[in-house]
């Protein structure tokens, strides 16, 4: 079993520990995990900005890199959604690229989806003493149907209690460039998320998309919450995120 780990541009730049945690979890399933060297970005920022030609170029680049693996795993719902759902829209009708794009798209999985549904070699979660609340990020939830998978995985972590926050399926207000273009609106939305987190009173907020997590952590800290930990699910399951 040869797996490609697509770490995402955000993990590369902002939180490498998520990439290493994902790597450990995937290696523990017994798979051979390759990090394709030329990977940069799946092109989501271009697509969201409405720049189709650029999104197409980056999609082609990613497809070429990710072909030839049994599976592609991504620690991000929105990037996995881009490859699974958007790439076929961009290139599905192309006689040359269509079959290639569909081949990659159907073998691409978000990390928790992969570990819960696809991984053959089993999976052992590290101990995690404390309470967590899970934020369902939008593209994972509504684009890929990821809801029970991360919760199933978290339940395997010894010592972990899952407390559901109110409106866990509500958007955190990140939205990529939206968070910068409409920073004030985005802040207002994430403020409601922070209220929900405060209301549930968990030790950690956990999610599957680094963009959402940076947004939530940034607002929590600005509000003066220095104690609630904000973690990617890979970091929780792999036992801390040290690289």
């Amino acid at each position: 079993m040869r797996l490609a780990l697509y770490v995402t541009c955000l993990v590369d730049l902002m939180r490498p520990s998520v990439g290493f945690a994902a790597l450990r979890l995937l290696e523990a399933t017994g798979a051979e995990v390759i990090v394709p060297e030329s990977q940069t970005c799946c092109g989501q920022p271009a697509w969201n900005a409405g720049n189709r030609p650029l999104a197409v170029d980056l999609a082609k680049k990613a497809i070429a890199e990710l072909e030839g693996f049994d599976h592609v795993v991504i620690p991000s719902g929105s990037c996995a959604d881009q490859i699974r759902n958007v790439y076929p829209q961009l290139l599905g009708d192309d006689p040359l690229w269509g079959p290639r794009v569909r081949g990659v798209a159907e073998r691409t999985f978000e990390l928790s989806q992969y570990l819960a549904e696809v991984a053959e070699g089993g999976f052992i979660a590290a101990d995690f003493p404390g309470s967590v609340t899970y934020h369902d990020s939008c593209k994972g939830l509504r684009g890929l149907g990821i809801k029970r998978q991360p919760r199933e995985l978290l339940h395997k972590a010894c010592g972990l209690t899952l407390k559901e926050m109110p409106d866990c399926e509500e958007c955190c207000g990140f939205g990529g460039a939206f968070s910068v273009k409409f920073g004030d609106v985005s802040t207002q939305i994430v403020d409601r998320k922070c209220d929900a987190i405060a209301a549930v009173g968990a030790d950690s907020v956990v999610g599957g998309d680094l963009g959402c997590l940076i947004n939530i952590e940034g607002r929590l800290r600005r509000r003066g919450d220095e104690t609630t930990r904000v973690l990617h699910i890979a970091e929780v399951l792999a036992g801390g995120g040290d690289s």
Partner: protein
Amino acid sequence: MSGSKHSQAMHFHARAGEKLRNPILQGALRKAKPLFVGKRAKGVASLAEDGLDFDVLRSTAKNIRNRTLADLDAWLEIFEERAVATGAEVLWARDGAEVSRLVVDIARRHGVTKAVKSKSMLSEEALLNEALAAAGIRPVETDLGEYIVQLAGETPSHIIAPAVHKTIGEVEALFAREHGRPLETRTSADIPAMAQEARAVLREHFLSAGMGISGANFLIAETGSAALVTNEGNGRMVTTLPKVHVVITGIEKIVPTLEDFATLMRLLPRSATGQSISNYVSLLTGTKRDGDRDGPEKTIFILVDNGRAKLLGSDYQDMLRCIRCGACMNHCPVYFSLGGHAYGWVYPGPMGSVLTPLYTGIENAIDLPHASTGCNQCGAVCPVDIPLPTLMHRLREEQNERGLRPWPERLALKVWGWVAGKPALYRWLARRTARYLNWLADGSGRIRIFGLAPGWTAGRDLPVSSGLTFHELYSARKKT
């Protein structure tokens, strides 16, 4: 006057800031959101009691709407023929200005000096109230929310709850002024009394108006009827008491049969207010017949294009399925941060972010298609499965194709895209950026003011890593 002339949609950004800083509005929105969301959830869940499934029903409803749109011209002709056969008159309007002209003409012809109105968003598109007032005809809104909004000299901020942005204190101040009585302290327990007060005032208007103006939730082709879905009863007064009844509605509101209407009615009230059925459902057919105790002597339909026909066969045709339930805005994080007025034209929320550019010009509403996190909470609840984020996306693309995006954004994207296509250069730049961010954080792990993205750090910190990228750490590890 066409739509674009009164659209304020170009000022979305500035208005957004203003709305965020308005504590009264914010309080009203915070209160309303859980009510809307909770009611709709209950309403949809209650479908199971009738052995119905939301997804199945939604796909049936979508098919009904698609099938109708595929032969819209034919259904409209059938409607016209049947409506005329029942004694009604059918007029066609190309745009809002034509709507106003037709209504003013009808009013003049019948010597009308006052018109009572039931809720019609299309009359907002047409700026009909202004046109009537200018012609010396007094328009009186009779839907409670619309009445409040009219007293305040404002426009509706929500398509089914026009005054959702108003607090009870604000409404009390308007009522005291308009009804000529002293101001009182009000709580939510006083709402029925306040509604009663408005009712008493409106009753006089119903009885003295020469003309009733309503919208229509649907037009039914097989019977030539207008269907009206309301909760307050004012719709019945408006459509039966005055001698002349004018129905103004968009050409896309047509459904072929009563059966189709019944299917859509399983979804419309549930999606809007969570009700299994609204308090009143009226099917208005023709004029008062011999022996009828009430009803208009003259019924006139004005069927309006105002940008709709050109969406047929376009990338945006899906939008014409809309049945105006408001569920998209009720589940929108952006709408509930700002309220409807920030959107600058008749339709707020996700549906507005699609319709405003399409009806008033893409170049006149540049921000709206971007005023979305892409969360798809709207698309997930839409009872006719309109892919709202996809349509906003297509509008973003069209802005790019027409060179309407600001040049700094285009340049930044171009440079970023070029770099992202060159892995070695990308790696090097990522490393430099990681170092720079870490330097800005100055050992604290977070950046508090970031000049390159001030929109982010105005309200949030930017948590950063140790200054090393994943890929450089990974190659270092592979070497050891």
